């Protein structure tokens, strides 16, 4: 059957038969790099478009509908505009750090794509510590924000960066605990194996209420980690104009913008992998006919469908909720989410030891 893993295997065999081992490896690496960059760009375009359409639907307006069919080319036009715009570096800014920050943000987003299982047996890097890798790398993104805020030599940027630092560092804990509960249940850190462990049902169905709590905590924590509303304090536009990227323009701004959207995609992909079964189709017990029909849907579609559902959830939050205040934000994490998360992890552990799950 046609699938991503078949294509990848065919390509791999062909490359190794045609070229010598080193060259084949090199070509494969270049191909993967190109794939990551193009996925990055496509995701940026699609997600920006999706956000604009979703917000338009929620705000009783039409959204972009002039450029191309149904306004689908609007993001392209915007990208083009950003590309030709002058990228300014303000006077008094730390030029090196100022220009480096957006690239770090983008690099982090790209690195995070590596261990994600996009389809059945299709991932860039079958990493045995995938989940740990994701939590480790994602915390680097705070460095880019702090760097941007500090180097801009702008007080708004600095305040935004300080807020962001406090926020990401705190919410990482909750996200980590939520991820850990699935790791406890599966006993593996490998993304692909986590997906495989859900062959007879997704964790959100198998794991009773504790896993549902983990899922909710995870969604809240990653919304905060990606600086999305209602936790968008780092760029709170009505308070800090644009927060840490106030001084950025042109493509450097676009890189931050893209990195934000790709980060949203990645955290949703991880959420889908851990809780909603990744590329695993939806099965109901012994309904063989139904299950067979579900199997016919390609695994990549399952993965992207679940991911985009979660992305829609996060966009829904953004366009419905007001923003929290910085102290309320930290209270929510340290006084509520973290204790609940810890207790929940104990519950999940007990559940895993006693085998009280389907």
């Amino acid at each position, binding site marked *: 059957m046609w699938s991503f893993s078949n294509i990848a295997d065919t390509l791999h065999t062909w490359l190794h038969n045609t070229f010598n081992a080193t060259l084949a490896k090199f070509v494969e690496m270049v191909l993967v790099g190109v794939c990551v960059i193009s996925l990055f760009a496509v995701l940026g375009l699609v997600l920006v478009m999706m956000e604009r359409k979703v917000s338009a639907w929620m*705000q009783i307006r039409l959204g972009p509908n002039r450029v191309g069919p149904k306004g689908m080319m609007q993001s392209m036009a915007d990208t083009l505009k950003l590309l030709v715009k002058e990228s300014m570096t303000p006077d008094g800014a730390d030029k090196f750090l100022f220009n480096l920050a957006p690239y770090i943000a983008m690099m982090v987003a790209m690195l995070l794509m590596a261990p994600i299982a996009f389809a059945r047996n299709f991932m860039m890097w079958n990493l045995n510590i995938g989940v740990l890798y994701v939590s480790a790398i994602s915390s680097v993104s705070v460095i880019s924000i702090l760097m941007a805020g500090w180097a801009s030599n702008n007080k708004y940027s600095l305040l935004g960066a300080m807020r962001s630092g406090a926020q990401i560092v705190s919410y990482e804990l909750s996200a980590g605990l939520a991820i850990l509960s699935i790791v406890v249940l599966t006993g593996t850190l490998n993304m692909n194996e986590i997906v495989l462990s859900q062959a007879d049902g997704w964790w959100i169905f198998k794991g009773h209420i504790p896993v549902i709590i983990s899922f909710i905590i995870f969604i809240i924590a990653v919304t905060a980690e990606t600086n999305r509303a209602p936790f968008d304090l780092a760029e709170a*536009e009505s*308070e800090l104009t644009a927060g840490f990227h106030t001084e950025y323009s042109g493509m450097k701004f676009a890189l931050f913008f893209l990195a934000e959207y790709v980060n949203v995609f990645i955290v949703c992909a991880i959420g889908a992998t851990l809780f909603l079964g990744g590329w695993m189709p939806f099965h109901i017990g012994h309904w063989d006919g139904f299950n067979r029909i579900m199997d016919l849907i390609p695994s990549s579609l399952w993965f992207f469908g679940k991911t985009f559902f979660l992305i829609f959830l996060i966009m829904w939050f953004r366009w419905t*909720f*007001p*923003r929290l205040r910085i102290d309320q934000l930290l209270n929510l994490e340290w006084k509520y989410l973290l204790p609940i998360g810890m207790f929940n992890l104990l519950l999940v552990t007990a559940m895993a030891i006693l085998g009280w799950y389907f």
Partner: protein
Amino acid sequence: MVEELGSNTEGDLIINVGPQHPATHGVLHLVITLNGETIKKVEPHLGYIHRSIEKMCESLTYRQFIYVTSRMDYLSSHINNHACALIVEKGMQIEVPPRAQVIRVLMDELTRIASHELWWGAMAMDLGAFTPFFHAFREREAINEIMEETCGARLTMNYMVPGGVLEDLHPDFQRKVKEFITLYKRKIAEYDDMVTGNIIFQNRMKGVGVISAADAISYGCSGPTLRGCGVSCDIRKIYPYELYDKIEFDEVLETAGDSFARYMVRIREMNQSIRIIEQLIDNIPEGDVQAKTKAVLKLPKGEFYQRVETARGEFGIFIVSEGGTNPYRIKFRSPGFSNLSALDHMARGSKIGDLVAMMGTLDLVIPDIDR
């Protein structure tokens, strides 16, 4: 000493919020002294949109100066015009025909709703919720359409003139207003679902920007800002003008004095305005819409003061007349200016995010503060 005055000490962060800032809704310039995220001092700097309207009014005749007042608090231009018309009528003892009186009150209350709608959307946007803004504008648009048909304008109406109103109502007026009332009653529940009942919103508003009744009075606050502290100050009740003493409506009072109280006052005021409109819309008497006045208006020698209740509070006009065709001296008392002066008092010790929420609930319109 410096500490006591809240002046800058070393290590404080001084930020200029505005004149170009998304939360100031105009060209207000606040100089904030911060300690981390905590506000130590807020210092408003005015003058960016000063057009010397008072001086302009002094060189215009009593028919002409009304048009300038539409440009002050542009969200309640009807009510400003109303005050101007009233002061001239009071000075010259002009009887306004009953039809014109009813039309004026209807327009005032529609303006109040439109103004509060815009405030509601803008305030939610200050708090980071974007969607309510569009929902508020949907309802405001219905009012603007009604205004457009009758007055020919959507923002600077210039509809009320000494002696009555400029033109008769559009034939569709009653039908459209009734349609709006049905629409509004359906949508106000949506507002509560979307914003008022939201837990994040309530946490952001309750206990924030608290001002005591005594302080609010000493700063000269008026309108919803003062009524949020539980002080009865509705000019429509205390110094009734036009028909307000004959209409049934309640003065909305809240006691907490915080941002949420001010918010609730405005939301409940919209319902009271709807109540007033419902009473009047079917009872518009027939007749003239403008009293017969002389071609040249001359106020007798003396001093005149007229106050009205705009959407933001007490708006007053003080005229010193020498008996000529234009005022010798004119002074406007705008509600926004006094309400803004209380901002520093409210904001000290709170966070930047709260400052934005407070400015939202004060409902500042900058051209009104800075004339």
